[in-house]
């Protein structure tokens, strides 16, 4: 007898989760979600040819185009990843129940945790692949465009006879708006946020009775989750004796404990504006994301393990 059956079974579980994940991925791909990417490419390339009205003089020329490319891209990534994460997660589980395909899967030697993890990973795989493709496109276009802007600005500065250190400062300024490492960090943040909302949608769908309900609740939590940090701050300041009121205190506490903190991911906006994102902070953000995903999967399993169909 194997002394550690649980550990010995890990590759088996991993293989089964992978099968379900790839299957869910294929299912979504064949639902033609990737058409969105063509649309994304189209607007991105179009935005590149699209000249924004200039409010400013030549000393700022082009930099706002770089910012526009980033805003477009990360905005589209945000929309796509959040909508896809919620809708497809909310859809996949009830669809399996409705079509009775779940019976055939669970009638095979498939632990329910493997099934849940597989479905979620399938959705996340799709989001990841889509984001990676969008990221590659954005980075490429941004790279080309940054070099163009830089060349223009350097010629302009040289013609004006700027001192070397000011040219250097200008160059730094422009490059900060280009394809930086922090920008990749922002894309990763978009993905992390999508993983959290997807796993949360999975949890909701284990006890929800309809796809519509899951979708609405998940979106609601997504929006309110942006204020969790404010509720937490309010609770902690009350705790510190800034004010009292048991009702306010308990409401803010419950919001802070129950909802995920999505405000953390607003760093994406600051990065688009050219702020630098230190690797340590990105690492911490990733840890938070992992914590949520693992927790929500286990929580989903808690409900799903004994669910009857």
């Amino acid at each position, binding site marked *: 007898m194997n002394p550690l059956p649980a550990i010995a079974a890990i590759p088996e579980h991993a293989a089964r989760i992978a*099968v*379900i994940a790839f299957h869910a991925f294929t299912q979504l791909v064949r*639902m033609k979600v990737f058409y969105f990417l063509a649309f994304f490419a189209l607007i991105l390339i179009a935005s590149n040819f699209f000249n924004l009205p200039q409010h400013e003089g030549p000393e700022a020329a082009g930099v706002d185009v770089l910012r526009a490319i980033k805003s477009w891209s990360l905005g589209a990534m945000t929309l796509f990843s959040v909508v896809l994460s919620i809708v497809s997660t909310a859809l996949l589980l009830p669809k399996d129940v409705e079509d*009775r395909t779940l*019976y*055939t899967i*669970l009638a*095979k030697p498939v632990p329910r945790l493997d099934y849940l993890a597989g479905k979620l990973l399938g959705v996340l795989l799709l989001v990841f692949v889509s984001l990676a493709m969008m990221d590659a496109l954005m980075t490429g276009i941004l790279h080309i465009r940054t070099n163009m802007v830089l060349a223009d600005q350097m010629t302009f500065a040289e013609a004006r006879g700027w001192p070397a250190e000011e040219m250097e400062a200008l160059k730094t300024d422009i490059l900060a708006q280009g394809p930086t490492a922090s920008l990749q960090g922002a894309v990763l943040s978009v993905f992390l946020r999508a993983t959290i909302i997807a796993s949360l949608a999975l949890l909701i769908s284990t006890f929800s009775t309809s796809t519509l309900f899951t979708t609405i609740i998940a979106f609601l939590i997504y929006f309110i989750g942006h204020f969790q940090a404010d509720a937490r701050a309010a609770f902690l300041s009350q705790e510190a004796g800034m004010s009292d009121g048991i009702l306010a205190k308990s409401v803010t506490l419950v919001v802070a404990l129950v909802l995920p903190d999505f405000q953390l991911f607003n760093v994406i906006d600051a990065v688009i504006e050219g702020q630098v994102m230190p690797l340590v902070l990105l690492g911490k953000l990733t840890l938070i994301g992992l914590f949520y995903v693992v927790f929500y999967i286990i929580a989903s399993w808690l409900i799903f393990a004994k669910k009857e*169909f």
Partner: protein
Amino acid sequence: MSVSPPAVEIRHLVKDFKTSFRRQPLRAVDDVSIRIMPGEVYGLIGPNGSGKSTTMKALLGLVAPTSGQCAIFGKDSLKVDSRNEVGFLPENPYFYKHLSGKETLEFYGKLCGIRGSTLKDRVTELLELVDLTDASHRRIGGYSKGMLQRIGLAQALIQRPRLVILDEPTAGVDPIGSREIRDLIFKLREQGITVFLCSHLLEQVQEVCDHVGIIFRGKMVKEGRLEDLIAIEDQTELILKDADPGLIAEIEALIARDAKAELIRSGKPRTTLERLFLRETKRQETQPK
């Protein structure tokens, strides 16, 4: 040879479903016990809503019993490993429409841990068995009812289970498709696979099953070997070959002389399963609650 455990062992299964708040729970299955030995073909018959599907789901661990136990080859149904030896075809199955027949079988095969050339060979073999080789590359979305049922059966067989559970295998299938499925069940029986099926189509059950159980309003009302069940206990049947009318007249005269015995009918001696079913369910209905 050691005594092998029964393929299916359901002991005093009770399943309640909550309806709404404060109302009494609905008892879908009430103290049902079934034991199916390896190699048997067992048919569970009963009208719609009598608890057939719930019993099967409990056996597969899809619902948890309120009380009682279910086991497959001695393994508790609530444990995942009990599912290694069982294949299941649900009622009116749908499969992933985006997959082809071949991909569907591959998917279920991989779920059971079958890989590589073993999987490939098994899929080819099963497609041949259910006669879907020509349609194997078509998306399931375009399959007919009968084809769906057959791919469902193939899916159930993918890991060579020793037990196959079929929930209404011929529901909504035309007579020809129905016969094809019946033939497949015969093939399974030849291979020694235990089959547990439920249906409300009685002739079909009569044709393929060697054991039957009748379930009505959640209760098992009659169970046993088909041969025994449909024999009429207070009657005796003589089947004569090449008997001339004189002999028959003699026998009839002999019977007439007996005070107790009575000749009911000569000719076809058996009742049908259908008649048995109706009789048993009627008796159940007239009983006071």
